[in-house]
């Protein structure tokens, strides 16, 4: 197949991929603006005064007015949005009402810890998911398949915050092997790649990995099954290929879709970490979001959600581009 492509044909295809990438990037712009709008509006669907967190209960009307003007809450909504967006583009997401520190630096520091957790969880979840999915798809309806499918369905159905609690009960309370909360000895200090810190990562990472494990298993199992039932596999076997070589073809064909699913799952792990971070007091973006919600720290809430959503949009873009680069046959709309 590949040998038949002329040099010219390949260049044409590269151009098509590039054009797709360009279109996809342009398409992201309205999405980013809409996401910013949603984040901005979140604060304005909030009942009550956004200043309630900083204003003393007996504050005078003047003080309230001054503060409102200082935070810009006294201007019309579209103006506020324009100003907020302009500042956000320039890297200024305002200051946290509760701590007074810049929102962006707070969020980025926390996101670092969440990325550590998500990558550790992805390593566990994707490895197991790919393994289980391939085996289950290959030996469909056998006992291995049934076992892997059960694991997968349990993984996608388990309330992960509860699983976290159960793991803490087993490994921290009953066995006393691993720490129950935090991200390092002596409070939540700087992260380091040594055993003292890694001990804290094990339980949250396993807990985070079960959902991606389940979803990757189910996807890869279905993909493998579909590919194995296609004619070209029959042809490969008829040609006399060894089963290991047939397997290699299956993996190659399953890769683009599996990659897309894994990219999306990585995004979910980064953005949806609040429950697990709350269970383990893991000092990431989820825990930050939690405290922003309960201290009614609206600039921090807005900023955290915006950064996490943009991360997710960016990751989706990367996945689409990677998919187009790997498999130019992918239907591009």
């Amino acid at each position, binding site marked *: 197949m590949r040998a038949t492509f002329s040099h010219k044909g390949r260049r044409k295809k590269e151009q098509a991929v590039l054009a797709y990438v360009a279109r996809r990037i342009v398409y992201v712009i309205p999405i980013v603006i809409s996401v910013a709008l949603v984040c901005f509006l979140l604060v304005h669907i909030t009942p009550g005064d956004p200043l309630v967190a900083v204003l003393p209960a007996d504050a005078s009307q003047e003080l309230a007015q001054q503060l409102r003007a200082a935070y810009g809450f006294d201007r019309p909504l579209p103006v506020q949005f324009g100003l907020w967006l302009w500042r956000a583009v320039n890297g200024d997401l305002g200051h946290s009402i509760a701590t007074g520190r810049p929102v962006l630096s707070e969020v980025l520091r926390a996101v670092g810890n969440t990325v550590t957790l998500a990558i550790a969880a992805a390593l566990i979840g994707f490895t197991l998911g790919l393994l289980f999915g391939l085996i289950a798809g290959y030996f469909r309806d056998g006992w291995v398949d049934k076992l892997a499918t059960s694991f997968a369905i349990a993984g996608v159905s388990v309330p992960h*915050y509860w*699983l976290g609690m159960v793991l803490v009960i087993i490994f921290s309370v009953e066995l006393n092997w691993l720490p129950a909360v935090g991200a390092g000895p002596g409070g939540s200090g700087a992260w380091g790649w040594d055993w003292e810190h890694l001990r804290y990562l094990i339980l949250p990472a396993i807990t985070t990995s079960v959902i991606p494990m389940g979803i990757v298993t189910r996807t890869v199992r279905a993909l493998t099954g579909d590919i194995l039932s296609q004619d070209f596999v029959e042809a490969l076997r008829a040609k006399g290929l060894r089963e290991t070589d047939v397997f290699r073809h299956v993996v190659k064909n399953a890769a683009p879709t599996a990659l897309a699913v894994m990219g999306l799952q990585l995004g979910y792990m980064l953005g949806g970490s609040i*429950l697990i971070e709350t269970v383990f007091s893991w000092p990431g973006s989820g825990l930050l979001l939690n405290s922003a919600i309960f201290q009614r720290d609206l600039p921090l809430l807005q900023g955290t959600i915006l950064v996490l959503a943009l991360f997710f949009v960016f990751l989706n873009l990367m996945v689409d581009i990677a998919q187009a680069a790997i498999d130019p046959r992918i239907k591009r709309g």
Partner: protein
Amino acid sequence: MSELPIGAIADTALQVAPVTKARGYWATVGRRLSRDKVSMACALILMAIFIAALIAPWLGLADPYQGSMIRRLRHIGTPNYPLGTDELGRDMLSRLIYGGRLSLIIGILPVILAFCVGSSLGLVAGYIGGKINTAIMRTVDVFYAFPSVLLAIAISGALGAGIVNSIVSLTIVFVPQITRVAESVTTGVRNMDFVEAARASGANAFTIMRVHMLGNVLGPIFVYATGLISVSMILAAGLSFLGLGTKPPEPEWGLMLNTLRTAIYVNPWVAALPGAMIFAVSICFNLLSDGMRSAMDIRN
């Protein structure tokens, strides 16, 4: 007289024919589903949890709100308290069964609401197409730019804690997902011959959507929505677990898990019980959805 046997054969043929013909698509799906042991077991478990929650006041259980400081955190298997007591000395068995009421409502209602809104939007977008499709589907895309957990927590965090707010935020999370499924199914059905025939014979858009398309698109959307209930149960209880849903002293599984977290060093396994209920309901809905999907896939 010699005609009689032939007549009899014709009669039996006539009697048999309608029976085999009468079993339509849905009857076949139902029959296939009822033969699936896993799906039936899940349906039974769900039924038991539903009915127990429904008739809880008549089951002779202890008062789920009545606590006692002298019998706090009893272990599983204590006489009179088969599943122990919680951090305020309330009977766990009673709270778990009563807890099904709120937990199931806040978990299932968002999916039902989103099913109604999402399938209408998707049907309209898919059938009418053009600018309306673009408007609806591009709005849906914006919501897809948020991971669903983040979106649910952002909305209910902004709205504030409460049962209604948690239902609203979860509905907002699921509407785009159901709309997308409904739109793609509708687009697939729209160009089929029977819809073309209805249009040619002068049926208006509303009639075509209601009579000819609804029945064909609702099945796949329904299966998808059943699977969503599993996610919704986990998220709804998760919101309560964070303190964004139900408020104490209401018995609700997510909230119970939250308040019992402080007790994991004293009585760990009692603390884990509410989560096991969420898990059971969630996995049953997931397996049921899988069972329905394969039952509806008649080609297999």
